[in-house]
């Protein structure tokens, strides 16, 4: 993969989501809630539109898919760990939720090893949870029943992870369907 293929408009836009993470963590730690919310919403909006940008500029590819997934995971990790460390939320549900997320990520590594190429495992249920996690992060910042929201997401994540692992480990390697 050449540098030119990696440096395309979609990947540049997506990578800005990683750049704002330290600022968001600092904003949370210093209780600048509005700034943290603005950065969170920026990251969410970019996540919504980066796929469209990739298709518009005809530069969609496996690296961009992985960068998108890594940006999501980085956002969830940084915001939730910062929230737990700085007292926005009880660390126990955060640890359980992030633990389920790590098991989810390991499943994707297993999928890559099974199919023999770098690709993001397609899980609509997991995408649905990822989208909802943005709202949970907003809830964390606004103290909107935080522990209840994080525990609920943990339970749903475990259900989806079990379902995804079943698909990863039982589906024939060549039968991965495109999204309908």
């Amino acid at each position, binding site marked *: 993969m050449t540098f030119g293929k990696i440096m395309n408009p979609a990947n540049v836009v997506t990578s800005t989501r990683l750049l704002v993470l330290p600022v968001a963590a600092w904003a949370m730690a210093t209780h600048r809630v509005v700034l943290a919310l603005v950065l969170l919403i920026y990251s969410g909006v970019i996540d919504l539109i980066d796929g469209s940008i990739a298709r518009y500029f005809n530069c969609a590819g496996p690296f961009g898919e992985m960068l998108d997934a890594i940006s999501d995971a980085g956002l969830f990790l940084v915001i939730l760990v910062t929230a737990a460390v700085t007292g926005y939320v009880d660390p126990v549900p955060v640890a359980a939720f992030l633990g389920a997320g790590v098991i989810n990520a390991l499943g994707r590594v297993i999928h890559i090893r099974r199919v023999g190429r770098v690709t993001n495992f397609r899980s609509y249920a997991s995408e649905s949870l990822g989208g909802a996690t943005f709202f949970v992060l907003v809830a964390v910042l606004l103290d909107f029943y935080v522990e209840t*929201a994080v525990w*609920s997401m943990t339970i749903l994540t475990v259900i989806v992870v079990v379902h995804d692992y079943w698909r990863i480990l039982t589906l024939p390697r060549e039968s991965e369907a495109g999204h309908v």
Partner: protein
Amino acid sequence: MFDLVAANHHGAGWMTTGFAVFLWSSLPIIAAIFVYRVVRDVRAFRRATGADRVDLSDRLLGWATALVIIAGSLFLATHRLWTAWASKL
């Protein structure tokens, strides 16, 4: 001074209340999109076979997950609005 975030589950400032109002006010759009897509995927699931059927099964689990999340969010939003305003009436 009117609190910005408020909380500890005993009250709500304008941002927290605004989040609850946002969840309720966006419900008509979310519900319409939700019903349209679920009906579309259920119909496709009935006809699909093989890998496409497995993919649609995953989509339907995603919709079920989304339904739980939406219903849970609305419940908490209702409770938050009640805690913030109605209980003071």
